[in-house]
């Protein structure tokens, strides 16, 4: 034994072990199969995930488009708000100073709504101005820097107002006509006016994009509550109209 050479020793091990067999546990294959399984199915989820992503992007696109419309409506609220500030004299000086500046530099129809303010202000400019100055001094004595800024601003605004004295009323009337013009436009597309509140609105919105005819191939009534009800179908030979809609 002791005298056995390395080569001989190795050969004995090799002979006994090279072709050796040990039967694995019965359930071992199942473990291998389980590890192979996810790899084989990996192709499917990727496809479905891509499909789902596309769907999400499409619906997100629709919704974002919709949000823009809602913001357009928001302008109506702004007009309302400014109207309120006009009737409320305590809020007026604060609101009017920036608006005069804006008015002076832009002068586009987009600032029509603020211009209503300015028009009102020009009427009262004579007595509002000194009042404003007093207010600034008395209410903000701890901030000299802001006061310094605000006083020249006010006087500048005053000058602008004088300049625009004649144009302001005219612009206000334009604003009035513009808000009037909004009405009929919105009547043509009720969905846009109200925003999408339910499935019916969404369907109407999509249908409107697809079908430009006066009588859509599908129309939901979404006026009452949140319950949409089908009021009109127009698919060529099949026509249903529960009531003649405007």
């Amino acid at each position, binding site marked *: *034994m002791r005298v056995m050479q390395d080569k001989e020793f190795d050969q004995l091990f090799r002979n006994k072990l090279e072709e*050796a*067999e040990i039967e*694995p546990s019965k359930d*071992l294959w199942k473990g291998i199969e389980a*590890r192979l399984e996810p790899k084989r199915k990996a192709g499917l989820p990727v496809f479905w995930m891509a499909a789902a992503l596309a769907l999400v992007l499409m619906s997100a696109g629709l919704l974002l488009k919709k949000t823009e419309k809602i913001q357009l409506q928001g302008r109506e609220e702004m007009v309302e708000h400014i109207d309120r500030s006009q009737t409320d004299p305590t809020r007026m000086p604060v609101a009017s100073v920036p608006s005069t500046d804006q008015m002076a530099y832009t002068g586009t129809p987009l600032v029509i709504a603020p211009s209503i303010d300015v028009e009102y202000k020009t009427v009262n400019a004579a007595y509002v101005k000194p009042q404003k100055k007093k207010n600034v001094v008395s209410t903000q004595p701890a901030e000299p820097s802001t006061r310094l800024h605000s006083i020249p601003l006010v006087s500048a605004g005053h000058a602008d107002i004088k300049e625009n004295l004649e144009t302001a009323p005219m612009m206000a009337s334009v604003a009035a006509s513009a808000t009037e013009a909004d009405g009929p436009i919105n009547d043509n597309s009720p969905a846009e006016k109200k925003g999408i509140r339910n499935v019916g609105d969404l369907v109407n919105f999509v249908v409107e994009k697809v079908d430009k005819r006066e009588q859509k191939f599908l129309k939901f009534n979404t006026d009452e509550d949140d319950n949409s009800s089908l009021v009109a179908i127009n698919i060529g030979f099949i026509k249903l109209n529960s009531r003649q809609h405007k």
Partner: protein
Amino acid sequence: MIKSYTIQDLTEGCKAGNRKMQEALYRQTSAKMLALCMRYAKDRMEAEDVLQMGYVKVFQKINEYRSDGSFEGWIRRIMVNTAIESYRKSLRSLTVVPIEDAYEQPSTGFDFHNLGMQDLTRLIQQLADGYRMVFNMYVIEGYSHQEIAAQLDITEGASKSQLSRARAVLREEILKMENINYASYAG
């Protein structure tokens, strides 16, 4: 074991991802491969773990197999590589081997020539990690010291010295077993 498939059937079936063929390949080769894994692992549990990982690799890499070489040799190589990976991981976790546990029960064999495959496998399993790897790779699988050094990330000199120390430990263990057997005869 039913060996009804040719190597070509098996390789082509596995390349196509045919589950039945994969299972057939496993059934035909797994006993030999487990015997191999047993030599590299510390115990049967680790060996079966390596076997499973090894077969998963076999099926994943089946397209890399060139039909000019021995298919069984190719699978063996994957098993050895998987066993080395497992060994590297166990090195990182720094497990301490209770060496004395090894000698509880003498085997059925009376001298070296009568030692069974299971006894020899157990003796190899009881070698320290590095010795076991080098001894298996050099003696049974026929790797060169250069290959072993590259695979285990050691020097060729270390591979050689670990091999000779592994042999010395094994000789000693076999001698011990023979002495115990002799003692049990005498007593």
